[in-house]
C-alpha cells in the first residue's frame, strides 16, 4: 500500500523495453541481412548530414564549437535528474502521523497521534506469540489517508485465517483506543525466518 507509481512504472518500462527490442532486432538484421545494411547506411547517412548542418549553423561566432553541445549537456542532465526522481518514487509513502484532526471539543487545537503509538502497541501485543517468527508494523499514506501495514511471518504450519482473525481483533481493540478507523492491511508472509525456523508444535 505504498505510493509506488505503478502505471508510470509500467509505461516507462514498456517504452524502454520496446526501444531495446527494436534496437536489438535492427542489430541482428544488420548482421544477417545485407539488404538491410545498404538501407541503413543510406538512411542514417542522411540523418547524420542533417545533424552536421545543424551543428554548422549553430556555431559560436568566432569559434569552432557549436552551442548545441551545451543544449545536449543540459538535456542529458535533465534526463538523469528525471531518472533519479523516478527511483525516488519507488516505495515512498511512510508517514509519521496516524491521526491528525481538529478536536471538535471546547478546547481549541488539533489532535495528533504519532504512528509509533499503533506500531509499538501492535508489535508489543504480537511479540510474545509462539507461532510467529516476526512481525513488523509500519504506517503508510494511501490516498492522503494514513493506513497501517502489518506484516506477520508465522512459523510453518500456522493456519493463516486464525492468525488473521486474531490480528484483526487486536486492530479492533486499537480502533476503540484511538477512536478512529484507519485502513489496515495484514500481510501474512513467508520468509527465511519462517522457512528455516522450527515448526510450531503446540497450538
Amino acid at each position, binding site marked *: 500500500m505504498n505510493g509506488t507509481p505503478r502505471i508510470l512504472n509500467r509505461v516507462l518500462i514498456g517504452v524502454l523495453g520496446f526501444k531495446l527490442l527494436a534496437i536489438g532486432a535492427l542489430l541482428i538484421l544488420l548482421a544477417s541481412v545485407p539488404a538491410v545494411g545498404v538501407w541503413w547506411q543510406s538512411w542514417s547517412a542522411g540523418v547524420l548530414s542533417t545533424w552536421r548542418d545543424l551543428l554548422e549553423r549553430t556555431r559560436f561566432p568566432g569559434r569552432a564549437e557549436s552551442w548545441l553541445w551545451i543544449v545536449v549537456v543540459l538535456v542529458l542532465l535533465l534526463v538523469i535528474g528525471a531518472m533519479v526522481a523516478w527511483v525516488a518514487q519507488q516505495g515512498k509513502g511512510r508517514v509519521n502521523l496516524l491521526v491528525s484532526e481538529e478536536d471538535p471539543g471546547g478546547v481549541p487545537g488539533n489532535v495528533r497521534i504519532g504512528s509509533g503509538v499503533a506500531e509499538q502497541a501492535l508489535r508489543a501485543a504480537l511479540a510474545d506469540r509462539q507461532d510467529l517468527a516476526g512481525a513488523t508494523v509500519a504506517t503508510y499514506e494511501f490516498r492522503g489517508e494514513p493506513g497501517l501495514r502489518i506484516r506477520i511471518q508465522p512459523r510453518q504450519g500456522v493456519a*493463516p485465517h486464525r492468525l488473521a482473525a486474531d490480528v484483526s481483533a487486536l486492530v479492533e481493540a486499537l480502533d476503540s483506543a484511538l477512536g478512529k478507523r484507519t485502513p489496515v492491511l495484514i500481510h501474512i508472509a513467508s520468509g527465511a525466518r519462517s522457512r528455516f525456523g522450527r515448526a510450531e508444535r503446540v497450538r
Partner: protein
Amino acid sequence: MRHNTEHDSSHGSYAPPVPGAAPSVGGAVPAVAGMEEILKRETHSSRAVASIIAAILVAALCGYALLETAVRAVGQPPWLVDPQTAAEQVVALPDGVPPLLLGALGAVVVMAGLFFFLNAVLPGRRARHVLQDRRAAVVVDDEVIASALARRARVAANVSQDQVMVTVSRQQVQVSVRPTSGVPLRPEAVLAAVQDELRDMALSPTPEARINVASTGVVGA
C-alpha cells in the same frame, strides 16, 4: 496458470472465528473505502525492481554521453570515443564490426528489451491470495497457505512431515503424499481434511484441491 475457470465461491460458508463481535457490514467486504484498491495493489507486482534497473541503465548511458559531450564542448580530447567518430561508425555499421559480434550484441539487447517489455505487459500477479476479514484487508503468501495445508494433510494421513508436499497456485492446490510402507492410507480422508481447511480459510480466488498419492511407500518412517 489458468485464468478462464470460474469457481463457485464458497464464501457464504465463512464463519467469523471470533465470537461476540457480529459482522454488521455486508458480508466480508471491509467498511473502509479504498480497501479493494489496496488488495489489488498488494496482489500485483509494483515492478519497482525493474523500474530501478531501467532507471539506472538509462542514467548510466546518459552519464557516459554527458561526459563525452562535456569533454567535447570544452574542447578537450575524448575519453573513450569522440561523439562524431561514434556516429560515423554507427552509420557504417555492418562494416567495421564482425557480424558474429554484431548479432550477439543484438541478441543481448533483444533479451534485455524482452525482460522490460514483458515486465510491463504481463499482469504481474504475485503468489498471494486474499483472505476475507471483517476489519482489515488480508493477503496471504501462497507459501503460508501451503504450509498450513501440509500440516493438516500430514495429521490426517498420519505420516511424517517430509512425506507431504503441497503446492499452491492461483486456482489449484496439489497435495502429494508418500505413504508409509505397509500402512494403508485413504486419499479421500486426506483430501476431505484439506478441503475442510481450505473452506475455513475462505480464500479468493478459491483454489481447487487435488491429491496425488505416490505408488511407492517410504520404508521405516
